[in-house]
């Protein structure tokens, strides 16, 4: 049968056009909107639709478990399945790549009951997401030739562009300890970190500055001292080296030379730039 005669077998083609669009829309709706009535009225095979629904939930849960390993290690399975189900409905994937799905999961958690009961969960999710992004981030190393600007240039005109996998943020919770309690390769260290996390959570909360960085391929998480944190947040906000040093000038323990040595060792810096002001 040729293509033209195919269209003569029943409905005309424009009717079919609209029909196909509607059928795709209907199939998506009935898979995503998990209501028995929708299933009964859709005209599709109910067993088949339930397979797609289950696949969707399983795929979503697998994706979030990979991207948010700390959060899912902290949650019971029935709670986590419910959270995945809810998150799918408020933040549907739209990139065609499950790896890129979950950017809003931290905020979503903060709006949930479990997020209210365990307020550190949202920050754990933020940390997991930064680690996840660093894992897939661009491979960057220090442009070492730009280091010479530190001896030649004026600090007022020097700016540091960090490796794109570096993320520094403030939190009121012991995120590094919680992270290490679940991901340190050494069992003893995991136990120590868990104990530390529990102690901090039981005491009055103190703001911490946490950093994610990627020396080679494996992202690392660490807590910065108050002065290191202030210095890096200043640089990351676009302040000059001089302005950032000003932010820590009253801290006698802060040493720029020591910071620079560690920063190079940790692959924090991409380039040092000079901007004439």
């Amino acid at each position, binding site marked *: 049968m040729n*293509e033209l005669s*195919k*269209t003569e*077998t*029943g*409905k005309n*083609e424009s009717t*079919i*056009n609209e*029909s*196909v*669009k509607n*059928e*795709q*829309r209907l*199939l*998506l*709706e009935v*898979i*995503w909107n998990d209501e028995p009535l929708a299933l009964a009225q859709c*005209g*599709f*095979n109910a*067993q*088949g*639709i339930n*397979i*797609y629904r289950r*696949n*969707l939930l399983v*795929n*979503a849960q697998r994706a979030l478990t990979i991207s948010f390993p700390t959060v899912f290690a902290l949650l019971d399975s029935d709670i986590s399945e419910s959270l995945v189900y809810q998150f799918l409905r408020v933040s*549907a*994937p*739209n*990139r*065609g*790549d*499950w*790896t*890129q799905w979950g950017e809003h999961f931290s905020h979503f958690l903060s709006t949930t009951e479990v997020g209210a009961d365990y307020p550190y969960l949202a920050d754990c999710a933020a940390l997991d997401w930064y680690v996840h992004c660093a*894992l*897939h*981030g*661009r*491979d*960057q190393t220090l442009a070492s030739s730009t280091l010479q600007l530190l001896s030649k240039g004026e600090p007022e005109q020097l700016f540091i562009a960090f490796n794109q996998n570096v993320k520094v943020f403030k939190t009121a919770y012991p995120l590094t300890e919680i992270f290490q309690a679940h991901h340190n390769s050494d069992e003893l260290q995991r136990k120590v970190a868990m104990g530390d996390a529990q102690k901090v959570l039981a005491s009055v909360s103190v703001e911490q500055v946490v950093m994610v960085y990627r020396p080679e*391929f*494996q992202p690392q998480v660490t807590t910065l001292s108050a002065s290191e944190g202030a210095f890096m947040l200043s640089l990351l906000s676009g302040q000059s080296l001089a302005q950032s040093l000003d932010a820590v000038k009253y801290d006698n323990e802060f040493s720029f030379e020591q910071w620079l040595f560690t920063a190079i060792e940790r692959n924090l810096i991409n380039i040092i730039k000079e901007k004439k002001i």
Partner: protein
Amino acid sequence: MTMSVKNSEIMVGVGLRHPHFSDILTQPKQVDFVEVHSENYFGLGGAALSVLTQVREKYPVSLHSTSMGLGSTQNVPMQYLARLKTLTQKINPFLMSEHACFTWGQQQGQLIHSGDLLPIAHTLQTLTKMSAQVDKVQNFLGRQLIIENISAYVKFDESYFSEADFLARLCQRTGAKVLLDINNIAVNSMNFEGGDIHQSVADYINELPVGSVAQIHLAGCTEPLTGEMTIDDHARPVSDDVWLGYQQALIRFGAVPTLIEWDSELPEWSVLVDEAKKARDIAHATLARKSI
């Protein structure tokens, strides 16, 4: 009588997943190529991409995409295609494939991705729309696409082409080729056609022109409970029915690259290698018989 088929004349590969990274890089070459899911390497850098780059130095790589949704009434988003193009340029795959399905849609005015390979209506309208998408993607990537038949759990009443006929027409219009997944035919046969897999495969491949198939996928799936549909979970060795179907396909389409797919409950690397060896042995025997 023609010459018998030599080992080098059929390429047999396996799907490469993260748990086997170390095996593929450290063990002697035992398969002819590997296939990866493109989207797993959409990152801008990192360890996985580094491993794939190293693997590429040792093996031909086939990029198998799962999210393009070429049969969607929505266009494939440019952000997706840009990532695929970047990966293509980096890896220089010897094959690039996708599925005859839809994945993109809208809900409340927002673009969403289905996260699954959803079936399409096999109509002239879908064929026209999908042909335009395939043309666009092939032009954008500068590559020929190979389009795979899917396993489905629902069907559209509107369809009046068979899937095989639809794919044949699509390839004729676009210059794309067919990726023939024998297990998907078997799954659909069990779910919709009464389960005479031998007949279903025979009917399917006889509708495809000789020369239209550029790759074959082989996989196995978990036996369903009585009364349940078969789910294409790629969690078992290739079934006897699929091996028989493979022989039918080889007789019609010849020595096309063949892939063992295994995605769930991943076995040891050696099990995959053994499955690939079995495919190679079957191909040699079948093609040798054919050539007599």
